């Protein structure tokens, strides 16, 4: 069980990574983008608006791989690599329910408009069928849903398609074959062989008699389900075909893929193909603007965060002129060189490095900006906090952070020293002012998402920091928060300092006799400086005292000695580990992990400085 949180702005207005899926709501002129930054965003595609951003739908914790808009744009269903399928109110942008039936990334969704039926499929080789009306009716109390599953796939499913009537469903997988079912009976209909690589994109015509498939082998194939065979193969791309769109009449296919190019190919005469545009990155998804017929534009998303709209108007002139570029050997010139509209994306963090002090994280984004973040253990002084009593208590920043993250959770508002009655008062809110919230040092921004997940990465629960006070949320927290978090946040028991054993020995160069091996033990947070003080005080001084009695004569006052001890120690001696001189600021844990490195007890050597 692990707890993680996201350091971010309250509103993330730009896609931060590639966009895996697109859906247009023609009625409201809205575009939904499903991002690899785990956020589904709603955009206004109204040209005149200055800022197209409308809202974010945040609840996934990993890539959103596919989305479908159902119920005439009222409901959105999303599939994510966090293994869940979520049902959203598309108009208001909140998550209505989460389906956790898949056991691996959910890669593809398919939608049959006539029946309001949605199918989801993923790397767990499973296909589940969902009745959208049932899904939207789910509430917190009535949260069971029956689903039928289609089994038989031998490999991970990467693409899925269902015809509008909901009579045929096709899946594409790394098995390289298309498998066809009847979603009404869940009966296997056929297996279509022909592709030589993964099938990444599928389309079915309205009545489910024809199927188009785009594969990593670089081909597009047209299949006749009636004849159960491939009736045409189109080789228009140099590399894998990842996205397909087709007109209603099933005569022209738009295709995009790894080679970044988007072509329009006439299915009846494959020689007639038009290069529409060339993107800057591999094409992940396309969405035809079907508001006009013939289609006037196509939205394209890539592995970059920007989403472009390309005009298809030129294609009309192209067709009208009859001047097809039939010579496939010559490189085609793209129809469009300018995008019609752009939804700008932001930079994404592409590299991160946790610094050795475990408190800072260096990150690098796609714009090559480097930033650092903050985490884990720290001593209060180092962190810049002033503690009320002026002392330098050792703080567990991780613990503090946990407390801060859950500071709105009512359960954490209990002061452990309070007795039962006070607790009740506290719950009534009367004594709220007296209750110490959080950790007393710092707060995290309330919009910070907190994610509880299994160690493997599967998300159990995600909430915003500020929402933990809510009724449902706190109830769910009670269910999911692991005991070790409760220890810290509710019972205020910080984890104990780890003690590590170590040996102190004179360095071989000093010529001193090896002392009796005393096994020492100290907190692993102990700074090397303190060990040096110890050495100076207990060993060197003793030695010198016994040898030269004069040294004791000029013994200064006790208090002064204590203050000076550290300074003196640092002046006179140095500590070595594996023959490496240690920085007095280093703590023992660091020494053990980065210098000692080997197993067994840490051994430190000391020697007097040779000045």
């Amino acid at each position: 069980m692990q707890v993680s949180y996201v350091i971010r702005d309250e509103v993330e207005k730009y896609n931060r990574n590639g966009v895996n899926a697109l859906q247009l709501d023609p009625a409201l002129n809205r575009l939904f983008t499903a991002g690899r930054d785990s956020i589904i965003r709603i955009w206004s595609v109204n040209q005149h608006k200055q800022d197209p951003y409308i809202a974010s739908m945040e609840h996934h914790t990993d890539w959103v791989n596919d989305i479908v808009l159902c119920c005439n744009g009222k409901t959105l269903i999303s599939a994510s690599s966090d293994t869940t399928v979520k049902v959203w109110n598309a108009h208001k942008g909140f998550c209505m329910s989460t389906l956790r039936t898949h056991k691996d990334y959910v890669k593809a969704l398919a939608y049959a408009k006539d029946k309001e039926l949605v199918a989801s499929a993923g790397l767990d080789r499973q296909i589940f069928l969902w009745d959208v009306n049932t899904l939207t009716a789910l509430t917190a109390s009535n949260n069971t849903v029956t689903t039928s599953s289609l089994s038989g796939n031998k490999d991970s499913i990467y693409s899925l398609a269902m015809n509008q009537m909901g009579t045929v469903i096709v899946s594409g997988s790394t098995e390289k074959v298309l498998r066809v079912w009847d979603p009404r009976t869940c009966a296997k209909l056929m297996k279509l062989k022909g592709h030589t690589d993964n099938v990444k994109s599928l389309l079915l015509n309205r009545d489910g008699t024809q199927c188009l498939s785009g594969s990593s082998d670089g081909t597009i194939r047209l299949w006749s389900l009636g004849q159960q065979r491939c009736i045409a193969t189109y080789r228009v791309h140099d590399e894998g075909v990842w996205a397909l769109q087709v007109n209603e009449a099933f005569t022209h296919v738009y295709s995009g893929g790894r080679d970044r190019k988007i072509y329009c190919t006439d299915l009846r005469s494959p020689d007639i193909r038009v290069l529409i545009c060339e993107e800057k990155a591999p094409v992940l998804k396309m969405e035809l603007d079907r508001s006009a017929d013939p289609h006037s534009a196509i939205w394209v998303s890539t592995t970059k965060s920007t989403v472009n709209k390309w005009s298809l108007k030129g294609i009309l002139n192209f067709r009208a002129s009859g001047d097809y570029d039939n010579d496939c050997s010559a490189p085609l010139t793209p129809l469009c060189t300018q995008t019609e509209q752009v939804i700008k994306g932001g930079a994404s963090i592409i590299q991160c490095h946790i610094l050795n002090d475990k408190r800072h994280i260096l990150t690098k984004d796609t714009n090559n900006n480097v930033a650092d973040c903050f985490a884990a253990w720290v001593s209060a002084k180092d962190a810049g906090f002033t503690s009320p009593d002026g002392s330098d208590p050792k703080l567990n920043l991780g613990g503090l952070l946990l407390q801060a993250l859950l500071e709105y959770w009512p359960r954490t508002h209990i002061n452990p020293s309070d007795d039962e009655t006070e607790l009740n008062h506290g719950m009534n809110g009367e004594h709220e002012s007296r209750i110490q919230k959080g950790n007393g040092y710092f707060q995290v921004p309330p919009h910070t998402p907190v994610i509880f997940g299994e160690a493997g990465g599967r998300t159990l629960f995600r909430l915003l920091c500020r929402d933990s006070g809510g009724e449902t949320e706190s109830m769910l927290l009670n269910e999911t928060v692991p005991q070790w978090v409760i220890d810290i946040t509710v019972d205020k028991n910080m984890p104990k300092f780890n003690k590590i054993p170590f040996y102190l020995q004179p360095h071989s160069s000093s010529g001193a006799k090896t002392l009796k091996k005393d096994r020492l033990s100290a907190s692993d947070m102990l700074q090397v400086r303190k060990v040096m003080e110890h050495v100076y005080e207990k060993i060197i001084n003793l030695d010198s005292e016994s040898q030269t009695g004069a040294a004791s004569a000029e013994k200064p006052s006790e208090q002064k000695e204590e203050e000076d001890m550290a300074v003196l120690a640092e002046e006179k001696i140095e500590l070595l580990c594996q023959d490496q001189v240690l920085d007095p600021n280093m703590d023992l844990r660091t020494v053990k992990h980065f210098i000692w490195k080997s197993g067994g007890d840490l051994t430190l050597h000391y020697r007097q400085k040779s000045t």
Partner: protein
Amino acid sequence: MPGLLNEGGVVAAVVGSPVKKSKLSLKFFQKKDTKRALDFSEAPAEDNDTAEPEETTNHDQVVPMPCPSSPLTCEKHESLVPFVGLNNLGNTCYLNSILQVLYYCPGFKEAIKSLCLLAKLKDKQQEDGAKNEGDTGEDTLPVSMELLGSFHSIISSVEQLQSSFLLNPEKYSDGELATPPRKLLNTLRQLNPMYEGYLQHDAQEVLQCILANIQEACDNIKKEQTDNQKDSTLSNGMGESNHEDDGSSNGQLSGKRKSDTEAGNAKKRAKSQSKSKKNEENVPMTRSKRKSSSGITTESSDQRNGTEEKEQEKDRGSTIEEEKNDSPPKEEGKRTRRGKLGWLKPSGKQPSIFSKFRSMGRITSHVGGRGETKEKSDCSVQEKQEKDTSENESRTQEVKQSLEKNKEQSGLDVLKWMFQGQLVLRTRCLECECFTERREDFQDISVPSTLSDDVSPDPKPELKTLKWAISQFASVERIMGEDKYFCETCHHYTEAERSLLFDKTPEVITIHLKCFAANGSEMDPYAGLSKVNTPLQTPLKLSLHEWCAQPDSPDRSHHYELFAVVMHSGVTISSGHYTTCIRMMDLHRTTLRLQSQDEDQDRDREDDTKQKKEEVPQTEYDDGEVSFSLPGRGQNVARVSTTISMSSKSVSKRSSEGVGLLGGQRSITSYELSNSNQTNPEKVSGSASRAAGSLLQNTVKKETEEEGVDAMDDGTQVSFDVALRNLLDFEGKWMLFDDSEVRLFEEEDFLRACSPETCSTSTPYLLFYKRVSQ
């Protein structure tokens, strides 16, 4: 460990009473009722001394007398085939089978010869250097070079024995045609003391050990050469002075050694013992103990050998005796040292990317010597460079390389070229479809010979083919589920596909059929490996096309044909018997040579007086010989006088060069001879096939003259072409080599033996395929 126990026993026996020991073993073998000819001359007390002189000489090859069959071989051979067997030196069939394969492996023999030539030159230089510096020189010869030398001597023995048989079949009318690979076995034992004693070993391991060490020798030579190049740029006219140095230092050397034999032996032994004791502190206890004790045994036995020889050879020429006396102590010094080196060397397989496949029995990667890692990285760098340059260019380079075998450098890489291929491990992200590649060299392919329970659910487990086995090895694997692949392009955990393909295929593909399966019930590490007797169908032809990263091309086809099979009969890895089936190919290239030739070659360098004595025959036929051994090392292929080459351009070219260089200067007679008789190099370069016979006769005559010196019987001569014709009858036939016994194996019999249908305990263990050019 049973191995250790046994070892201890052997050592004790040797130290205590050797005679008893060998008797014991004999009994042991009798009990086992093997038909193998046993030759226990390895034991200190020699039962059978006839072949001994040959064994201990350093460079010289003396044709062993027709190896008298040991008392146990009572089988009568009705007709001997003109192929030489190898005597069993006490469960050494694992070694014999591998040696036979290597001997008949196309190009291998030649490669060893040319390497040896390079190495011997090198040794001399090294000794010179050592003389100048001090006397550490004797100890510096690495054991891998020693292996090269031993291998060369076994090749020479076999060749001479074969020639001798072909020319005088009557001499061998009874008994058998075999030579003991004793020197090689000794070297092997220094390399890895595991081979001490008389236990059965894994043939595949021995093969890897031999190849890795010869490769190491190549690297040594290469290193030496680059050093020398630096030297030669520093000093001009080095060649001349160098040669002079040779003479003088030789004198010094022998003088010093002589004193060693007389007085220094005991001292030396003590020294080496203390050395090994010192060593004990550094290496793990048990091992070092074993090592030191075994070191001593070899040494003492050697010494005894030396003294025995001394006595025996008093009858012979005094010059020879001197030589013999020189060599044993020299070797001793090396031995102790070498034992150590053997330990320092990583004996096993190094971790590689394919280690994960090993559990499935998929691959054994190149077994490395000390220079291994370096060599590998070199190789990969080279690989990258090749990739950078256009493919055509690299191709032509490769072709050139194969053609220019005479060039020194390629001679050093020939082993890699022959046995080492390259695999490419390609990992492709299924999300972005980017892939990363890793390359690794391989020397053999280990394939499973049985279905493991979980592998293939397909209901066709019958008739497992080699193709199936290789596809098991080279299959595509998916990285998915819980352990996804972190794609650097996607910055995400994704599914990925990992495929293993052949990037470069070697000339000879070695396939190791994993037929030993660990038996869960028994914990004994040796006995527990019981054999799975479900052999695969062994095809005579093999195409690796479908697993190759690069397409088939005319000069590097992916088509192979079977030329040798090592068979194993028996039930466990520690018992049973190895035999080898080899298909005879390119017999027309066989070098028929007579005993004096090689000797002369060595004497040329080592003994000036002797050379003078034989001056007349020497200059007469040795026009090619002398000329190449000095300026153009490594041109062993151009054994002009006796190699019958039908179409080898390089040979003819070289030979004419040789004539051009020396014909006028040194051997006018031979030059005239070649002109008048239309013989020798020009003959070869001209119309070889037409008048090959006359050439042969010519050479035979010439050598007959020469043989007179060595008192060979003229009466038993058979003309060369008849001999050759006899030999060529076997072209394309399968021969079964069962230690000292060699017999014809009809192809159908052979196929039946390899077939899974036959219920036999004898199953194919190692398959050797050679590339077929299309």
